[in-house]
């Protein structure tokens, strides 16, 4: 198998790599969010330490505080992080504010080609201005918002019969957003094994980015666009299009009809908790968590299965994931670049996927054995083919917080209409772009 041969090749590369890295040993600090893939990266990086002689330190921050903590670090010119796996939306600010080192010359010198990585990830995680060949990060961790469900419940004859009776359809993985809601409604309040269960856990968090990531998972399949003409910031008619209004109304209905009680401020952790405690039939979350979910002794294995965010008018998934950048304030940029060179190797990327990280390298993704290597691998490929990301502008934080407020006001606090929420969002975003001098 190609994956195995890549792993074997990594052993050979050790000697070659070590011989080219006789430079002074440094202590490097890599900053990222505190989650399952970060643990995999610690494991993976041991190989780099052995080969290069550099020591790796890690600074992992829980997701709800990750952006605050890291953006403050960058804005203050801090030297804590030599390498940063920053969120995709930070790329514009990272590039324009001089936080990230531009990697083009380094890539050219070391023969690292962006053509070796999945185009969607290069576009989203590495380039600024968007789509131009100006690279500020190497795609490190592909990710998208997907779904998982209780396969054991879906397979039970009594539940299947009840669903058929209620809807006239066979119970299975939803093929559209509306079907997803139908299934969620069916499970909501249902008694299974003497316990009341609920339809779905979705993102409703107010403080950071939660509800925006959840809502966009409905908006994108309905065909949501940020601008009528890319790069023109002409949002009227796009952001508040009839399709966008319908999608937002859908998300609100899904929240109201089918989530567990008290689900007003929930994000990744709450979604995982709801599923692992057997409260919900379906849950949305990032693919990054799927290896851990599959390995869970109580609700993983045969009891779980995965599906890509269902389409409606079109396929569409919310992009997650990150690129790895060298922080321009670091005094150890050479050693940090060594890490990126090492990380870009196909053999390392293969091991990265094996350990639970989501490689974006074509040699891994295009491997014939990839789809069957994990139960969610095929869904991951499908999701990455239809991903869409939030604004990646330098003013992304302002744009994000405006959306957090407007959609939370509408979906959770039940204030105003979907159209009003999106109209106000356009006003907020227009003000931001005017301040930025882009309108």
């Amino acid at each position, binding site marked *: 198998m190609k994956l195995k041969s890549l792993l074997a090749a990594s052993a050979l590369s050790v000697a070659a790599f070590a011989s080219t890295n006789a430079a002074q040993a440094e202590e490097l600090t890599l900053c990222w969010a505190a989650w399952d893939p970060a643990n995999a990266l610690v494991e993976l990086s041991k190989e780099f330490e052995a080969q290069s002689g550099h020591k790796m330190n890690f600074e992992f921050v829980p997701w709800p505080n990750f952006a605050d903590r890291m953006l403050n670090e960058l804005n203050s010119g801090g030297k804590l992080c030599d390498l940063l796996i920053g969120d995709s939306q930070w790329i514009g600010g990272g590039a*324009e504010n001089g936080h990230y080192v531009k990697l083009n010359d380094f890539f050219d010198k070391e023969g690292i080609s962006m053509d070796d990585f999945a185009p969607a990830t290069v576009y989203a995680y590495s380039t600024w201005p968007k789509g131009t060949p100006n690279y500020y990060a190497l795609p490190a961790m592909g990710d998208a918002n997907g779904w998982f469900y209780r396969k054991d419940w879906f397979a039970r004859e009594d539940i299947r019969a009840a669903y058929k009776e209620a809807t006239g359809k066979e119970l299975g993985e939803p093929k559209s957003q509306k079907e997803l809601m139908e299934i969620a409604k069916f499970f909501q309040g249902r008694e299974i094994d003497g316990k009341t269960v609920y339809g779905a856990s979705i993102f409703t968090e107010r403080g950071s980015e939660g509800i925006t990531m959840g809502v966009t998972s409905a908006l994108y399949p309905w065909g949501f666009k940020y601008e009528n003409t890319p790069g023109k910031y002409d949002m009227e008619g796009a952001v508040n299009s009839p399709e966008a209004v319908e999608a937002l109304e859908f998300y609100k209905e899904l929240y109201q009809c089918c989530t567990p*009680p008290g689900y*007003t401020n929930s994000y990744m952790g709450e979604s995982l908790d709801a599923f692992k405690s057997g409260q919900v039939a379906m849950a949305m979350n990032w693919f990054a968590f799927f290896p851990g979910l599959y390995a869970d002794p109580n609700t993983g294995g045969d009891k779980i299965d995965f599906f890509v965010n269902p389409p409606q008018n079109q396929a569409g998934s919310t992009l997650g994931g990150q690129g790895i950048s060298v922080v321009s304030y670091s005094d150890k940029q050479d050693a940090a670049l060594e890490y990126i060179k090492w990380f870009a190797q196909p053999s390392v990327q293969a091991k990265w996927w094996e350990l639970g990280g989501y490689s974006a390298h074509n040699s891994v993704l295009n491997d014939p054995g990839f789809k069957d290597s994990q139960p969610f691998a095929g869904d991951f490929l499908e999701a990455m083919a239809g991903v869409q990301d939030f604004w990646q502008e330098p003013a992304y934080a302002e744009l994000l917080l405006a959306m957090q407020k407007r959609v939370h006001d509408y979906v*959770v606090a*039940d*204030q105003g209409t979907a159209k009003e929420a999106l109209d106000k969002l356009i006003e907020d975003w227009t003000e931001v772009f005017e*301040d930025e001098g882009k309108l």
Partner: protein
Amino acid sequence: MTQTTMDRAAKATPVRVARRIRGLSDRAIAWIFVAPTIFLLLAINIFPLIWTIRLSFTNYKANRAGREIKEIGLRNYERILTDSDIWLNMQATAHFLVWTIVLQVLIGFTLAWLINRKFKGNDLWTTIIVLPMMLSPAVVGNFWKFLYQPQIGLFNYIVAFFTGREPSSFEMLGSVELAPWAIVIVDTWMWTPFVMLICLAGLRSIPDYIYEAAEIDRASPIRQFFTITIPMVLPFLMLAVLFRGIENFKMFDLVVQLTGGGPGSTTELTSINLKREAFEKWRTGYASAYAIILFVTVFGLASIYVKALNRVKER
């Protein structure tokens, strides 16, 4: 002969220093002593305030070092004062402020009045009552988040026990109607003991002979309460209101832990909103203007209140 502290200090001063000091006036020596404090005050209080005022007239963003800083006059102030969302934040803050103070004063005074009576276990009860205010607001916020949980929260079960409703049929933190009250309840639970302690100090400062004289004059207990207790405790109560008012105007940690400002923006107090503008959106100029408006509001209200407090004290 016994030596005074002054004598000992004079002897301990090196001769060279003593000679120099001898040539200085009392006023100069006083300045030498207070100068470090004044310097610190200027550096960490006054300078930032002046700098904030300056920034409030610009479009400055602290996260965009290379961006041109433009003077925009009163534009930030105009935007803030005409923003309906900010007025909603102000309303949420006013609701929180008024109700927490009303409840804390009523319950705090009642508790102090009860505790002030001599009974067995008095000290133990005082200790138990003041426990909440010794906890960290972050801990209290998390703790009450669990208590308010609709499925497993004790609060919902207690309400359900008395009302017959399903515990999961209402959400204290998720409901637009209930969330503002949920944060009022938690703050009241945490800080009523503080008001109680101040009131207790006031009650214990009333000399017994005043009550004895009132009894000789055959004043009823109710009359004693309204003509002796209340007037003599009033300065203490007003002080408690001032402390709690200032604290709750800048309330942040407890509410962030409980609701994060939600649902929607229902419990987004001005301090939470200000933090978002300053350190999440990084609109530094705008946030500076916002901070100045809040500062002037608190300073103005507090000045009026302190004058009233002094008048009550002089009576």
